[in-house]
Each structure stands twice: as C-alpha cells, then as structure tokens.
C-alpha cells in the first residue's frame, strides 16, 4: 500500500511473536483492516502467517464477534460487551431457551428504531456460537488452535474455514450490524482474503 502501510509492517514484524490480548479497544474504522498484500514484505510461511492471524484477530476479537462467542451460556451485548439485556441463555442448540429464542427479538434483518436511537440486530440465522467455539476471554493463540481443530470448529477443513469467513451470512453481519453498533474493521471480503492468505502461509498460530 503506502508509506503508512510499510511503517506498520515494520511494527507488525517486530511484534509478530506477541499475542495481543483482547484488552483496550481502540476505535476502528473501515480502513483499519489491512489486506494480505500489506504483508508482502514479511517472509512467507510462519512469520507472515502469524502476522496475518494477528490482523484477523482485529475482527475475531471485535465485540461484534465476541458477543456471540461467549465463554458462558449467556451472550454479551453492545460495544462495551455488557451482559445481554434481557438475560437470555444459550438453550439446547444455541438458539435460546423455550419461550425466549433468539428470534423472539432478533429478526432476519436489522431493525432500526423509528427515532434513530439504535436498532435490534438481525440476520437470517441469529444464534450463539456453540460452547466449543467460545472466544471471549481467550488468547489469540487459543482461539487460533480452536479454529483449526475440526472437533471444535464444526468439522471444517481449512478450506471450509476460508469459505465460512468469506461467505457466511452471520459472519458477514459483523460488517453491517445496524445503527448504534460499530462494525468490525475492514470488510468480510478482506477478512476472507486474510484467512486465505493465513492458510496459504501455513495457518500458524501464535503461542
């Protein structure tokens, strides 16, 4: 990309071994997710792969994703990731409890409040990620290994994982989350490309 990108690459390279903790959340904007080409300066294979995963981490550990990949049986909500109000539970299959399913409130598309104050997010298939796909509170390394493990990622091969990240509707919602919610950085297309590039470079996980 540009001068800024090159500078950032140097930083990324020197921090490649560090796993970013999902702590302080900086305001992100759509330009804040780099493309695979921005990592061309890193050597192929492990070094580049780790840097690419760290970049994917900006999406994976964004509230849009973490809120529905909870460690417990209850999702969190909002940019501040506060307990979901009302206090809903996962239920048997991640679609909520009898009498209060996810789709009791969440429709197939985002629903904007008439006064512009916010929205109820929606998607064709609104539900919680299964417990074995919990990400909240985990390190990038733990998440990475989980993502690669067919016994914990819904039986996906790496190719299927790329497809999921690039094309899945609910994943895609993260970039079109409705009023009152900060979108995940970049775009689903970029996220898919980063995933592909990460896999291409060996799908390495940080420690």
């Amino acid at each position, binding site marked *: 990309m540009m001068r800024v990108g090159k500078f950032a690459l140097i930083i990324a390279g020197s921090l490649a071994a560090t796993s970013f903790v999902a702590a302080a959340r900086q305001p992100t904007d759509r330009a804040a997710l780099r493309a695979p080409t921005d990592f061309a300066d890193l050597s192929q294979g492990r070094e580049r792969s780790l840097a690419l995963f760290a970049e994917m981490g900006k999406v994976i550990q964004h509230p849009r994703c973490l809120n529905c990949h909870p460690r417990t049986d209850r999702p969190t909500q909002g940019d501040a990731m506060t307990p979901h109000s009302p206090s809903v539970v996962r239920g048997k299959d991640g679609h909520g409890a009898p009498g209060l399913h996810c789709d009791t409130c969440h429709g197939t598309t985002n629903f904007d409040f*008439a*006064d512009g*104050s916010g929205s109820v997010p929606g998607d064709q298939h609104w539900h919680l990620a299964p417990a074995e796909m919990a990400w909240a509170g985990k390190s990038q390394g733990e998440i990475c290994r989980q993502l690669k493990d067919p016994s914990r990622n819904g039986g996906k091969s790496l190719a299927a994982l790329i497809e999921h990240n690039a094309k899945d509707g609910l994943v895609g919602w993260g970039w079109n989350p409705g009023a009152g919610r900060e979108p995940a950085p970049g775009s689903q297309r970029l996220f898919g490309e980063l995933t592909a590039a990460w896999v291409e470079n060996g799908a390495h996980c940080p420690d």
Partner: protein
Amino acid sequence: MTEHSEPIVPETTRRQMLAGAGALVFSFLVMPPARAVTSGRARSHPFQPNAFLKIGADSSVTVIVKHVEFGQGAATGLATLIAEELDADWSQLRIEFAHNDDGLYKNLRMGTMAVGGSTSMANSWTQMRTAGATARAVLVAAAAKRWRVPEQSISVSKGRIASGCKSTSFGELVADAAKLPVPTDVPLKAPNRFTLIGTRLPKLDSAAKSDGTAMFTVDVKLPGMVYALVAHPPKFGAVPAGFDGSAAMAIPGVRKVAAVKSGVAVFADSFPTALKARSALQIRWDDSKAETRSTTELFAEAARLADEPGFTVVENGAYPAALPEGAREIEAIYYLPHLAHAPMETLDAVMRARDGKLDVWLGSQFQVKETAAIAGELGIAEKDALLHQCYAGGSFGRRATPGNEFDIEAGQVCRAWGGPEPVKFLWTREDDIRGGFYRPVMVHKLRAAIAADGQIIGWDHRAAGQSIVIGTPLGGGAVKRGFDKMMIEGADEPGYRLNGHRLSIGVLESPIPVNWWRSVGHSHTAYVVEAFLDRLFAASGVDPVAGRLALLEDQRALAVVHRVAEMADWQRPRTAERTLGVAYAKSFGSYVAQIVEVSRGSDGLPRVHKVWAAVDCGIAINPDIIRAQIEGGIGFALGHALYGEITLGQGGEVEQSNFHDYRSLRIGEMPEVDVAIIPSDADPTGIGEPGVPPLAPAVANAWRKLTGEVVERLPFTRSIRSASQA
C-alpha cells in the same frame, strides 16, 4: 385488645363514634343521591340509591368505583365493602369507573377525587359500607312491603332476600325499590359478622387483564383520531427557542407541527409516523434556566446543604457532649439517587374538544383536578368536561403530580391541534425515563451513639434534597410548617425510642421535577434509618431483632417484628454463604417488618432468595390483595435497590433512556415472598406502599453481615465493585 395509635378518621365519623351506640350510625355525610347518575343507564339499572351502586333487573350489582384501578386492587376493595353490607353474592358484582365529580366521589381524606398515600380503602371504609347498607335497607323495605311482613323478619344473604318460606332475588325487587325513599341512617355490621371482608375474594378485573380485553387509555380508538407526541428538551428547565418542522411535515402522514410550553408537538396518522416526525424536528433550546449540574454535583450540593441550619424538624433533647463509658458512636453519609416510577403504561391521554365540550379518556389518579387542568388549557368549563376513566397500567405515584403537569401539557397539545378530531397523546418510554418527576435525590448524614445497654443516647440526622411540594400548588402546608414533611417522613417518627433525636432538612433547588415515588419519603428515610440503626447495633454487639424490640414502643410495631422473626426462624444460624437481614417501617398507618435471606450472586450482587414479611394494616379487607401488594412492593423495592438510578451526566442530561439502561427486576431475580397478616380490629390502613420501605435496608443489613460491605450509595450496582465490572 391491642393498643394502637389512634386511626385518622374523617371528622363526621368521629362525631358518630362519640355519639355512641354499638353500631356505627350514618349521618348526613356522603350518600350522594341517585339523581347524579345519568339517566341513560336507568333502564338497565332501575335501582340506584346513591352514586356508588346500581342494581339491575338481572340482579347484577354495579359498583361505581371512585378510585383509579392501577393494580392496587381498589376496584375490588370498594366493591367488597359494598357487597358485604348489601349481602350480595360476589358473583353479582360488576365494576364501572366514576366520572369526574368531587361532590360525589372525592377521596374523603384528600378533599378531591384521588388515590394517594395508600388511602383508597381507608377513606372509603365507612362510605362504601354505608352505600351498601343503604341499598340493602331499601331492598328490605321493598320486600317487606311486597310480602306484607315486618322488616325484622327479613334476612338477606348471598344476594337472596327471604322471609319465612318466601324468597326472591335483588333483581325482582329493584323496580319497587326504586320508588322507595332512601334512608340516611343505617346500621353497619359489626366485624364479627363479616362474610366477605376478610376473605380471599377473586378480583373483579383479573379475567379481563388475563385475556387482553381490559381497556387502558392507550387502547382507546375513536374515529378520525390523530396521534400526538411532544419533543421535550434534553435538559430540565430548558424551553423551546425556535424550531423547524419542515422535514417533519414532509413525511407522509404527518398532519401538523406546533409549539407547546413543554416542547414541540407533532400530530400524525399513526404512532410510528409521529415518532419519525418528532425525530425529524430541528429544535433550538434555550438552556439559560436549565439544570446543568450532574448527579455528582447534585449529591455534592445536597451534602453541603445538609450541614447548613435548614429546617429543624425534630429537636428532642441534646446530643451528648461526652459519651458515657461503653458507648459506641458511628457516622455515615447516605446518597440516594433519583428514581423513575416507570409504570408499564406510559403517560397518555385521549381528548376530544368539540362544540365547547371536552371528553377525556384517562387512567386518572386525580380525576377532577386532571380533567380540569386539561379543560383549562382549552378554555372549556369544568362542567363541560367529562372524564371517561380507564384502567391505568401502573403508576407508583407517577400518574398524579402536584401541578398536574402532564394534563396541562395534554391540554395544550389538544389546543394546538385545534380541530374536533380526537387526539391521542402519549409519552414514549424514552420520554418517561427522561421526563423527570423522579423520586427526589437525597443525601442523609447521620451520627448516633448507643449506650452499653442498647439505648440510643444521641441521634443527629441531617437530610437534604429536593422537596416534592414546595413551589407547587400543594406547597402551602409545607411553607406554613416550615418544611415539606414528604421529604423526611419516617425519619421524624421512626418509632424507636431515640434520646437526643435531632432532625433537620435542607432543600436543594433544581428545575428537575420530582414526585411522590411509591412510599415517598419512606423510600429513602427507611433505608438510612434502618441500615444505620443496624450498624449501630452491630457496633455494640446487639442482635438486630432484639435491639429493635428493645427500642420500639408501639405494640403493633413490636408484634410485626416478633412475628417476622418467628417466620424466618431468626435464631437459627444460617450458613456462611447465606445471611438474614431485618428491617421495620411504619408508613401510611401500616406496620411492616421484613427479613430477607441473601447470598452473593454470580454477578457479585446480593441475591435475595426469600423475604418474610409481617404486616399489620388494620382490618384485612382482602388478605390476598394485601399479600399481592406486599409481594409487589418487595419486588419493586428490590429492583430499584439493586439497579435503579436516574443519573445526570456532565451538563445535566439524563443518562438513561429505556429499560436497557434503567434496569428493572426480572422474574429470575424475584425472591420467594411469604406474608403474614396480623389480625386486627383497627380501621384499615394503607397497603399499596408500605411493603416498599423495609426491603432495601433489610437487604443492605444482610449484605453487611455477609460481606462486611456497607452500602451508602444506592443502587447496589453503584456501590459494589465486583458488580460494576460484570
């Protein structure tokens, strides 16, 4: 016979009582004559001896309910009193709501139609019974005439009138009864003859509220009706300085945009369209007189005011200059935030001003005053304004305000519309949460000393916060007296023997409107008195139940504390994970003691498993309704103690807006509640509010015992660190 403090009775009843005789006799007061009822109904209800009931040829007994029914059970309660003295069968009873007429329907304690101060039953006790007894007397006279038998030979039971082997229904006598004179002097039953009062009668509104047919104001639909909303300023005390409604008017279905005193009104063909229109308004606000302080600043100001001389309410001996051997002294400062009432049905009104006449549909708490306030804005005389009373979806005090501000606003909205079409005006939930009329913000400073023998030897209490009535049309009494009693009721006479008791209050002035949130002053005074007292006991090793028993003087107070301790098995040690806490408060004439069982929840907050409550509210008209009010009062109190606060940020704008950030108790958080009602012969006292005050301090007391943490600022989420990180 238990000793009890003298009940407040209307002046005429007191004269009757003094006049003697075993049965209460009735005098001139009250029975508003039948002519006050509109004749249109006469055909189906031929017998209408007074303004409170009518009996049809089908034997139905329709009670005209003078109080709003907003969940407290007043409609059923009033009907019970009538049915009792009438000797009707409960299945005959129906209810209708009274229209606006103080001459017929005023609250006898308040001088106007009103529900407030938990007085619905207390003020109606004699009046409704007399209404029923009067009707019974006429039916008996009619039967006596028809059967040519002496009246003394006639008995009435479960809606049947009988003499010897003759028997008939009410319905068969109503035509005759309508022609007979209505006596003004009828005996009432002695309590030992009650067959309905004191029993669990099913409520008359439960079925309609369980199948969607109960009609609330917001459900009223009339031909040609327009929907109105008002855009309110973000800061209290700000006024509109100009607006541009063109974007709003461009939206299809938007009919009009107009200024009112409280903001800018939009009128549209539907509620969603009105919402869109309101969001499209461009309004300039004049903030020059607005409240711009934050809650933090308001608390600081109130804390400062508490130390100024202010108004002295109690001065009962001096605080000891030096403490005797073995005495303990503690000090505390408590911060109680603004609270929203947030009834489930937001404020609303339907109005139709046409040909110089006004029809109003409202779930009105102050029926005459509110209707008059609306009519006043329209230049319509009170006599030309008719209220069609509806059920109200909760109030907790919100639906009545000292200055009838909502009604004035509604009247202005109707006037701004300017047409003969009905106008449905409502507040959104955001309007409700942000619209003020909160429980006042209060700061309480206490310093007290307890002697080695458990006697309180000094109790210095300085409170400061907002007054509810000073500066309003109801403020006269407060100004005369020098202070607003509603600010500190419960702290002035907590019922304990307090030596060296001093209480002073300072008034924090602010444009933020405040109101009588369920249990009013008791909502915060009971918290500080009971939590502080408990700490005083702890400091000197006194058991909280025994300590209270040693200091209470009223037998009825002692009885409820004894009873609740028994219910909860207070003496039995609990596990380390669960503790008990106790609190007592007398409010609105009723005595309530509560014990709670608490553990630390997974969110770090108190988890209340169970609440035991012992209640003495005089004669228990309907024990199940009493239990329901205590259960509800406990749940209401708990949700607010745990989560409830309205906070103003920097610059004075309310930070909350809806139920996602004005958090309400949910079913999973509701404790199990066990209520015991102490049998009593005293006239009935209030029950809508008295369940609220003891709950929060009981929880605070249990929490302190469990964790050592003292909660001096409510809500609990504010004070408990681990909870705020959840």
